[in-house]
C-alpha cells in the first residue's frame, strides 16, 4: 500500500534543503548566471565597426577622393588622419592609432580614366586577428563595389542599361539579420553558464560529505552508490533548470534576443547536456581529496573547455587541427550549436541530430563514469 520512496529521493530532498540554506551556493546558482549574462551581454561585443584608418592620398584626383568616401561612408572605417608620406602610415599602424592604412599612389585616377588597371595598397594590422579578418573582408567588399561602379560607368552608353549589371548580387544575412553579437552571445551563455554552475555545484558535494564525516553513516547504510549519485544529480539538475529559466528570461526580455525554437526541445537537450557536466562535477568530487581542490579542478576543467574550446568565443574552424580534434569530446561544443540554432533558427531534432547524437553519447559516458567513480568504502 505504501511503498517507500526510492532512497535517492531522500538524498534529492536533503540536497535541496542544504542548497536553500547555504548562502554561498545560492549566490553561485542565482547571481553568477545573471552577472555573467550582464558582463557578456554588455561587455563583450564582437561587432567590428569604426576601425580607425590612416590614408595617404598622393593622387588627389576625383577618383581617389571617391574611393576614400566609399571607405569612410561604409561605417566600418573612421578616418584617423591623412598621412603625408608612406612613413606616416607606418607610424600610425605601429602605434596602434590606426588598424588599417590605405595608400593611393599618384596617377591612380589617370589610369582608371584610361581604363588601365590601377593599384592601391592596403596595410592591415594583424596583431588582432578578429579585427584583421573583418578589415580584410570589408576592404575587399568596398573595393569590389568601387571597381564595379567604375566599370559600369565606363561602359555606359555603349551597352543598353538593362544589360549593364548581369549579376545583381544582394546578400542577405539569415537568422541574425542585424548581425547583433548579443543574439549570438546570449544563447552561447546558456550553454556556458549551465556547464559552469552545474559542474561547480556538484564538484564540492561528495568531497564535502567526506570532509564533514556525513559520508560514513551513508556508507554504513544500505543505500547504493548509484542511488546516492542519482539523488544528487536530480537535485542539481533541478537547480540548473532554474538557471536556464533565469538566463532565458533575462536574455529574451532584457537583451531582446529572439527565441524562435521550442522551449521543450531546449529542455530535453539541456537535460542531456547536464548529464555530462553534472557527471563531470560528481566525478571530480568523488576523486578529490578536499572540497577546495574539487572546486578548483571543476573550475579549471569547465572554464577552459567551456569558454575556449567550445566555440563560444573562438570559432572552432579557426583552431589548429589537433585542438579541433580535441573539441569533439567537449559536450559544450555540440550544445552550443544546438542552443544557438534553437534560439536563432528555431530548428528541431530534424536539423540538429548531428549534434544531439554525439552529445548524448558523451553525456552517457560522463554520467556512467560519475556513478562508477564513487566507491562505497572507507579509507
Amino acid at each position, binding site marked *: *500500500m*505504501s*511503498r*517507500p*520512496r526510492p*532512497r535517492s*529521493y*531522500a*538524498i534529492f*530532498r*536533503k540536497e535541496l*534543503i*542544504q542548497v536553500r*540554506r*547555504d548562502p554561498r551556493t545560492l549566490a553561485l546558482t542565482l547571481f553568477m548566471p545573471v552577472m555573467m549574462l550582464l558582463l557578456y551581454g554588455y561587455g563583450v561585443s564582437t561587432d567590428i565597426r569604426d576601425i580607425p584608418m590612416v590614408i595617404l592620398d598622393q593622387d588627389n584626383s576625383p577618383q581617389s577622393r571617391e574611393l576614400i568616401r566609399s571607405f569612410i561612408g561604409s561605417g566600418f572605417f573612421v578616418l584617423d588622419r591623412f598621412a603625408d608620406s608612406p612613413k606616416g602610415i607606418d607610424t600610425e599602424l605601429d602605434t596602434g592609432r590606426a588598424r588599417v592604412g590605405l595608400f593611393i599612389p599618384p596617377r591612380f585616377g589617370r589610369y582608371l580614366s584610361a581604363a588601365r588597371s590601377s593599384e592601391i595598397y592596403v596595410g592591415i594590422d594583424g596583431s588582432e586577428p578578429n579585427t584583421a579578418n573583418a578589415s580584410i573582408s570589408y576592404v575587399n567588399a568596398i573595393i569590389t563595389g568601387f571597381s564595379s561602379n567604375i566599370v559600369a560607368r565606363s561602359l555606359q552608353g555603349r551597352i543598353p542599361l538593362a544589360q549593364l549589371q548581369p549579376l545583381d548580387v544582394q546578400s542577405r544575412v539569415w537568422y541574425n539579420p542585424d548581425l547583433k553579437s548579443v543574439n549570438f552571445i546570449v544563447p552561447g551563455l546558456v550553454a556556458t553558464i549551465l556547464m559552469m554552475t552545474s559542474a561547480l555545484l556538484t564538484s564540492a558535494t561528495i568531497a564535502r560529505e567526506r570532509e*564533514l*564525516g*556525513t559520508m*560514513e*553513516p*551513508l*556508507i*554504513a*547504510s*544500505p*543505500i547504493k552508490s548509484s542511488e546516492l549519485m542519482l539523488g544528487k544529480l536530480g537535485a542539481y539538475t533541478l537547480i540548473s533548470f532554474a538557471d536556464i529559466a533565469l538566463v532565458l528570461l533575462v536574455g529574451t526580455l532584457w537583451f531582446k534576443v529572439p527565441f524562435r525554437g521550442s522551449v521543450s526541445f531546449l529542455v530535453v537537450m539541456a537535460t542531456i547536456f547536464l548529464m555530462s557536466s553534472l557527471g563531470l562535477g560528481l566525478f571530480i568530487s568523488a576523486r578529490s581529496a578536499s572540497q577546495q581542490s574539487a572546486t578548483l579542478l571543476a573550475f579549471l576543467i569547465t572554464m577552459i573547455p567551456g569558454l575556449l574550446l567550445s566555440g563560444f568565443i573562438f570559432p572552432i574552424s579557426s583552431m589548429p587541427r589537433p585542438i579541433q580534434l580535441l573539441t569533439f569530446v567537449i559536450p559544450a561544443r555540440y550544445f552550443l550549436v544546438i542552443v544557438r540554432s534553437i534560439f536563432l533558427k528555431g530548428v528541431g531534432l530534424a536539423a540538429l541530430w548531428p549534434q544531439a547524437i554525439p552529445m548524448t553519447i558523451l553525456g552517457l559516458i560522463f554520467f556512467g563514469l560519475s556513478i562508477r567513480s564513487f566507491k562505497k*568504502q*572507507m*579509507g
Partner: protein
Amino acid sequence: MDECAVESIDLTKKFGEFTAVDAISFKVRKGEIFGMLGPNGSGKSTTIRMLCGLMDATSGSAMVAGVDVAKCTDYVKAHIGYMSQKFSLYMDLTTEENLRFYAGVYSIPRVVRDVRIAEIIDMTGLHGFEKTLTKDMSTGYRQRLALGSAIIHEPEIIFLDEPTSGSDPLSRRRFWDLIYDVTSRGATVIVTTHYMDEAERCDSLILMSGGKIIANGTPTQLKREKIKGTILSIDTNRPTESLEVVSALPGVKDVALYGRSIHVLTTEPDQLTRSAEKALAEKGMSIQKIAPVQPTLEDVFVTLIGGQEYRRGPIE
C-alpha cells in the same frame, strides 16, 4: 549458536606494513552491551568498521546478524545501526529533517515513518528541538540525535564508536540511559570507549591494545581475575615526585597516577606500606593517606597494558 549477535573469527586488517587489527576473535551475545576498551590506535574503530562492512578485512571473517559480512554486506547494512566517531549529522538540517533523511535512506515506509520519528524524539528527549538546526544544539543533544538517527530503522545490532567523546558527565549519563532503553527493547549494542565509568556499565568487555585482545570478560571478572595482588592508594603532597620514589621500591609490581593519588599494585601490602612511608619521609614528603582499595577497571587496564603506555594514552 543463535544467541550470538556478532562473531569475529581471526579478523585482521593491515594497512600496508602496519597491522591495525591482528587476528582477533570474540563473540557478542544477543541483547548485551558489549564494550571495547583501549587507547587510541588500538584497533577498536577499525574492528567496528570491518564488522559494519565499511572496510574489507585483510583476512579472517565476521558473522553479523547471522550472516557473513563479506558476503552479505547489504543485508548486514540494513540490519545494523552505526554511529561513527566523527560527528556525522547534517549541521544545516533540523532534528526532524535529519531523522526524516535517515528514514528515507533506510527505506522506511511513509506511514510508519512519522510514528517512528515521534518515537525517536520521545526516546532521545528532543521534544521542542524538532525544528532546531543541528548546529544550534549542544554536543550532548547532537549525540543523542545521532544515536536516534542510527536506530531509526530499528536495527538488531547497534555499533557506537566512541559515542560520547567530548561531552560532559551529565550528557554521558543521559546517553547511557538511552543505550539501556535501546537494549531493553532487544537490541544488541557494541560500544567503544576509553571512559572507565562507561566500561563499567557494559555487560561484557574486551580490552584491546596494539590490535590485539589482551583480556575479556565481565567487568567484575576482569577486576577479580586480572589483578594479582592488592592495590594500595597513596595520597601525598607532591604526587609526581612521590610516584618516582615509590616506583623504585622493592615489591612494587605496577604504579600509576590517579588524579592526585598513586595506585600501587603489590603482593605484600603491609611491607610496602612501611617501606613507602619511610622512603617518602626521607625525601621530605608528607603522606596524607595510605590504604588498600578495591581494584577498578582502570587498575586492570594499567596492569595489563603497562603504566608507560597507559600514561601516553588518552584515558582521563
